[in-house]
């Protein structure tokens, strides 16, 4: 079952513009993560934000979390053609017997940055 849902499904922008993707989820979480996937490849972890954090930065990435609205956003500033990829949010799914959680992914946002 999918917990997070990204919006929009697809985003097309020009190089230099900012790209904003949103993620909504249904049940309370401990952490929310964002991943990137280049075409035909595996996912790469970008950033993790904990439920007691409201904002986090990493280079040109800015992630916000609003637990009252059960939503998160990923902002990529000054986008580059190399940012073209699919972006996924992942939330805590089922707990494992070992005490961690299975990451549960949304369907992703496909971002195209035109040079």
């Amino acid at each position, binding site marked *: 079952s*999918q917990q997070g849902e990204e919006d929009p499904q697809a985003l097309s922008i020009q190089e230099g513009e900012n790209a904003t993707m949103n993620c909504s989820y249904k049940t309370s979480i401990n952490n929310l993560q964002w991943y990137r996937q280049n075409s035909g490849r595996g996912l790469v972890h970008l950033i993790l934000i904990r439920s007691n954090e409201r904002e986090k930065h990493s280079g040109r990435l800015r992630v916000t979390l609003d637990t009252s609205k059960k939503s998160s956003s990923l902002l990529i500033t000054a986008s580059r053609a190399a940012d073209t990829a699919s972006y*996924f949010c992942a939330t805590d799914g089922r707990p494992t017997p070992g005490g*961690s959680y299975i*990451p549960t992914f949304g369907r992703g946002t496909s971002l195209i940055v035109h040079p």
Partner: protein
Amino acid sequence: DVKVTQSSRYLVKRTGEKVFLECVQDMDHENMFWYRQDPGLGLRLIYFSYDVKMKEKGDIPEGYSVSREKKERFSLILESASTNQTSMYLCASSSLVGGTEAFFGQGTRLTVV
């Protein structure tokens, strides 16, 4: 550099064949996962393992089984491949320590003909 390695990038198999997808991680992670990714459906969990010889079904286990005889290796088995199992298969691992960040392999694109 942490690494999750899947044995094949591309695989073509015939209907009815038994197919093995192998995944190896070098991070001493307890958790390992197999996901399937299809257009418009995102990533769906097939099986996961939280320790050697321990496994639990995910959301879509039908037609699949798994094996984890060693901590670093997690195998996905298609007992009798069917065309509806044509998909991208992604292996991932994560630690019990440090949150639930998952590290992914490069993916195996399986085509069943």
